[in-house]
Structure formats: C-alpha cells, structure tokens
C-alpha cells in the first residue's frame, strides 16, 4: 500500500515535472516523436533479426571455445604447460582489449590480408572477434566453476580408478557447468547487446539501421525504438537469470 502510493507519487511527479522543463517540446520532438517511431519501428524490428541471427550462431561457439580455454588453464601436467600458458595469454589479451577494438582489428585486418570471397565477409570475422572476446570471459567463469568443485572429489574419482580426463568429464564438469549457469546467462545478455558493435564493420543490424534513420530524419527517436526492442529481449532474459540464481541458492542451502 505504502509502496504503491510512493511509486504513484514518483510517477506523477515525473510525468508532470519533466514536461514542465523549458526544453521539453524540443526533446519530445527529437526523442519521442510518434510519427518517426511509427515509420521506423518495422525497419528496426527487421534489422533486429540480424542481431538475433549473429547471437544464435555466436553463442554455441563461445560456449565451446570458452570451455576449451578453461580446460587448457586447468592442465596441471608439466608437459602440458604450453597449453596452460596459451589459455592464460588468451584470456589476458581478449579480456583486456575492448570488444570494439578486437572487432575493428579482426574485422578489417584479417580480410585485408587478401582472403578471397566469401571468406573475407565481415559477418564471419566480426563473429570471430565476438567469439574470441566473449570466450575469454566465459572461460574465466568456467574456470571458477571447475575450481569450485572440491579437490576431494577428484581424489575420490582417482581412487575409483578414473583417469584425469574421465574425472573431468564425468565428475567435475557436470557440477561446474551447472553451477555457473547464472553467471554465464549474464554474459550472454551482455553479448546480445554487444552484437550491435558488429555494425562498425558493415553489417546493417538494428543499431546501424537506427543510425541511418537518425541521420536521414535528424531525429533520435529510432534509437529509443531500438532500445525498447533490446529491452524486450534482455529484461525477460535477466529475470530468467535471476530465477536460476535463486534456485542455485536454494539448492545450496
């Protein structure tokens, strides 16, 4: 009751006070323009399909490469030290460089080496850039998951006669992967937004399409439309991640 009342008061204040600002008519015309919104929204939805497609083919690649890198970092045998070193360098580099720089360098640089079509496509190399960056993050998440499985379980598996590989495959990973599902969900929500960065190297996805409309109409409303479309995807996804985390907590306690 009190919560409802105070929320209502805040909403009323916002809806009354903001339009009283002297610049409101201009802001409304530039950011919340109904006519522009109606005209551009279908085109934005259409362009968003490309975001979804890029996400759909990137996510599994990121999952598997991230897992591989995490396993590489977990290699304890001295002979496998180069593998471990590779894992360390990979996560250090790709976690440390802004996504947009990786996209520029990989998206323009690698095709610039003279690859023939269609292997120089910005879709391919933009995806590679996203996969490299995000698998570095995902690898770190998996690593914490792997390390969270108590050493005694590995010892127990060894005493049962399981090889190191089998211990990882049948004992550690099933628990590790499950434990970090919520953390990975967050990363994939972030990925869904960062897909838009591919627009810098050519693909006309929703952010670029909104930019084209903005430029032609000198109006920022298409950006608001794009933001709404993103929210329609990310809010349910975030809620789902919250739900998973809550379940994880309950299972632990």
């Amino acid at each position: 009751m009190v919560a409802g009342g105070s929320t209502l008061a805040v909403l009323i204040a916002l809806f009354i006070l903001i339009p009283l600002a002297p610049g409101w008519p201009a802001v409304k015309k530039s950011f919340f323009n109904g006519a522009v919104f109606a005209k551009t929204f279908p085109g934005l939805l259409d362009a968003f399909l490309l975001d979804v497609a890029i996400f759909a083919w990137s996510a599994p690649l990121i999952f598997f490469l991230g897992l591989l890198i995490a396993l590489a970092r977990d290699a304890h045998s001295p002979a496998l030290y180069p593998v471990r070193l590779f894992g360390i360098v990979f996560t250090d580099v790709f976690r440390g460089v802004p996504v947009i720089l990786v996209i520029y360098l990989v998206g323009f640089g690698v095709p610039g080496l003279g690859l023939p079509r269609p292997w120089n496509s910005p879709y391919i190399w933009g995806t590679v850039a996203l996969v490299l960056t995000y698998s570095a993050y995902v690898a770190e998440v998996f690593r914490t998951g792997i390390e969270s499985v108590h050493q005694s379980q590995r010892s127990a598996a060894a005493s049962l006669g399981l090889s190191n590989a089998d211990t990882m495959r049948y004992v550690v990973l099933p628990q590790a992967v499950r434990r970090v599902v919520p953390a990975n969900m967050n990363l994939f929500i972030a990925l869904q937004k960062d897909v838009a960065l591919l627009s810098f190297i050519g693909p006309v996805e929703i952010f670029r399409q909104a930019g084209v409309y903005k430029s032609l109409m000198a109006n920022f409303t298409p950006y608001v439309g794009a933001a709404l479309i993103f929210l329609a995807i990310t809010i349910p996804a975030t809620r789902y991640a919250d739900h998973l985390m809550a379940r994880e907590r309950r299972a632990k306690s």
Partner: protein
Amino acid sequence: MKLMTTTAALMLIATGAIAQNDCVTGKTLEDGKLTIATGNPAYYPWVMDDAPESKQGFEAAVAYAVANEMGFSDDQVVWVRSSFDQAIQPGAKDFDFNLQQYSITEERDEIVDFSEPYYSAAMAVLTRQPVVDGGAEASVASLQGLIWGADANTTAVPILNEVVQPDKEPLLYGENIDVVEAMKANQIDAALFDLPTALYLSAVVLEDGVILGQFPADRSESPDEFGLLMEEGNPLKSCVDAAINALKASGELAAIEAQWLSETTGVPVIK
C-alpha cells in the same frame, strides 16, 4: 565646416551600421562575432588541412564569403567543431551556423533549419581498379550486381536504395575511412559518396581508387543540396539566406566553386 562634420558623422554611422549589418544585430550568439561550426576533422576539399581559419577549401571559403556578406570581418569569425549528432540534438547550439556537407532533407528540416543551398552535389561511385577490370561499367544494370558500401550518416543510403537498387544488401559504416577500409579488404566493390569527397578518397586515400561515374546533381530523384545548418527557428536564417542569394547573384559562389571543386567536371554520367 559644420556640413562636413555632419557628413563625416553620418558616414561614420553608416560604416558602423555596415560593420554591424542591420540584419544580424543581436541575432548571433555573441555580439560582433559569428560562430561557425564544421566537422572534426574537416576534410579536403571542403576544408584544407583541417584548418578552416586559413580560408582554404570550398566550405571554408563559403563560410567567410557568407560572413563578409553579412558584414563580419574575417577576424570576427570564430570556429568551433561539432559532430553530426551534436548538430541535431535538441537544445541550445554553440554555433550560429554549421557547415559540413549537410544535405537538405524535408525530415531534417523539421528538427533544424537549413539555409538556401550553397552547393548541389553529384553522387559518385568510388571503386577500385580490380573491380573495373572485372567488368564493372557506369550503367545502373552493371552497378546492381556489385556489393555496395556507404557512410551510414549520409544521404547516399537512400539514393543507393532508390536509384541503384543493388541485388545484395549494402554494408554501412560510421565513417568515410571505414568504407575505404572495407574496400581495401575487398568486402565491398563500390561505395557512393558526394563527388568531391569521392574524388578526394580516390586520389589520396585509396591507392587504386577509380571514380566509375556520377549521378549528376540535377537528377530528378533525390537531388542532394548542401545547406548551412542552424538551430530550428534561428532568426539569423533570413540574413544567411540573403547573403547566400547575393553571393549567387554576384557569381561569387560560382567562382569559389570553380576554384575549389573544378575537378568535378569530366566524370562520366551513369546511364
């Protein structure tokens, strides 16, 4: 004697009035100054060496001609820099007018004000020698088969979609240089720019750049005209328009164009 003093005094008043210009008084951001914005950086041949105060380059020269026509001396002109988005955001502007090849469109005109056009831009097809060797010609039919790119912030995008109608979806970029980079990486075959920009890119930036042809400025579909951009409802607009019209009538604008953009002649027209 008295008559002479009066005349002198009258003349003083008169010259004073010309220096201030009756039209612009109180309409600029700062009295006695004209604040002009251009891109950051500003490119050849619009502004030479990114230094508009040198008056070198087409838009720099136009800016000073307009300023002089409105009664500002050269040292009363103040330059600032702005991006496209800064120029169209709602609220007070930090410039009196902004020139960086803004094409006048009806929809943009609802948010900001444009002066009378100071240049009619032909659109040109920039490509690379290997594409020409591969059989690309200056005909719409041949152009449709190419993979296209363009600067997403320009009116090249609608012209591409309306006039060329390429078979494959064009790729769009945030800056000229990115378009050129994609061309070097062979990700796109051709790109559409206004003619002077295309000439610059093909001559200076892109090693094996070729201008395949142009869609002339007076084409019936989507003509592209550049105007000075001002805040919506800026009272200075009438003075700026009068100045541009005077420059057109006296032939000065044409002379500036001939001085800086003369190379644009002789580019084949696309059929």
